[in-house]
């Protein structure tokens, strides 16, 4: 065990020289990803706390104005994201079992789900833009009489917008691991990037799980 080089004996994955083993490298990478997810939770956490404050200050506002959102669209997107989480988890499971083709199929389905989510969001957003249901001074709609109606759309666009950006980033990352999976770069011995992209994608799902009832289902 004297060599800490980049090359490794046949059958064993390569690992960087500052790690003891491929296992060590994998665990370190994963720990790093979890640390990043902590910052993500706290970033969205700030928005959730803002939501709590405004909802408690203006309960009637949220009750009235949430009708601008179509819960069916929100529910559809919830299902789409949940399924994408399943296929992402399956993709990792198949990589771990050396079933490359199945993993590729799962990643493609995950991408399609992500695109569907963004498509539905696009439809929702364009309706809001068209109706002037926009944040702050850009609010031009006559639909809601509540004086704080623009505030609801500030909250809505900030939370779903930041989430949507994450979906796009996640889709980019999935495309990257999809290409590498197709090239056969991953196996049961080395699949760190797929695993980490998976964690990121599941976090996006996790946040939407909370956003959906908080924004679309207020009663």
């Amino acid at each position: 065990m004297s060599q800490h080089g980049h090359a490794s004996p046949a059958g064993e994955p390569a690992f960087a020289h500052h790690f003891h083993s491929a296992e060590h490298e994998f665990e370190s990478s994963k720990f790093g990803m979890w640390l990043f997810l902590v910052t993500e939770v706290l970033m969205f956490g700030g928005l959730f706390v803002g939501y709590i404050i405004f909802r408690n200050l203006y309960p009637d506002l949220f009750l009235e104005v949430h009708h601008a959102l179509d819960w069916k669209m929100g529910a559809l997107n919830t299902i789409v994201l949940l399924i994408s989480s399943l296929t992402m988890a399956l993709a990792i499971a198949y990589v771990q079992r050396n079933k490359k083709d199945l993993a590729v199929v799962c990643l493609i389905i995950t991408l399609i789900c992500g695109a569907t989510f963004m498509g539905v969001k696009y439809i929702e957003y364009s309706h809001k833009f068209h109706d002037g249901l926009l944040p702050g001074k850009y609010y031009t709609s006559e639909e809601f009489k509540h004086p704080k109606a623009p505030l609801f759309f500030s909250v809505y666009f900030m939370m779903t917008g930041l989430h949507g950006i994450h979906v796009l980033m996640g889709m980019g990352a999935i495309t990257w691991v999809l290409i590498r999976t197709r090239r056969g770069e991953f196996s049961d011995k080395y699949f760190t990037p797929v695993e980490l992209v998976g964690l990121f994608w599941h976090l996006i799902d996790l946040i939407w799980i909370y956003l959906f009832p908080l924004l679309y289902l207020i009663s």
Partner: protein
Amino acid sequence: MSNNSEHKGHHLVPIANYFKVITALLILTVITVAAAQVHLGHWNTPLAMAIATVKAFLVMAIFMGLKYDTRENIFTISCSFIFLGIFVFLTWSDLFYRIPATPIKPDTTANAAAPLDLEKALKASPEAIAHGKELFKTNCATCHGEHGAGDGPAASALNPHPRNFTNGEKFKQGDKLTQVVKTITTGVKGSAMAGFPGLPLEDRFALAHFVRSLESGHANDTPADIEASGFKGGEKAKPKIPIDAAIQRLIEGK
């Protein structure tokens, strides 16, 4: 290489488990939507959050593999939720349990119902201004600042900001005495300025005198203005008190 062959971190989750989890997640989504159609009063949101948390646990435990992950990773991500919990709890408790600096005490004594001496009330006597100053400290200073400069402790949180009475800002609803009394009585719509109908009418006049005394150049009421304002001498003030004070009186059986 026995260490490597164990592959401790690479726990293989049976694929069937993933399908069990997605089934549970989809069922919980249907329950979330269905529960939102049922009217549960204040319980709708906590229920939705509880279901969301069950879903979040499923996603984290199985999809994200935390159930089979190292203790370090479980601890790390748990920390984020613990700190988020502290963030939410402290903000929430501040929002709900902050005691107003000086709660408004309605005057429920017989004096409050005494007939109004209009002539006396209209006069900006030093006594009236001094009395108004005292009332201002207990009822208004939290937002408007002790010296009426709109810089009370609560001011920074308010939009539109509380009126500064010392720098020539306009009174939104007029600066004549009767107009200011009306503003104090009914508040200003679209702002945090509340009405204080619980204060005896004479006190509201005293407050108006004090506020107007902070700056010169305010317009004065013409006799027609006073006529139009509807304030009449000898009028018995009907003290209105906040609902919670009324409930208190009911409970005490007074």
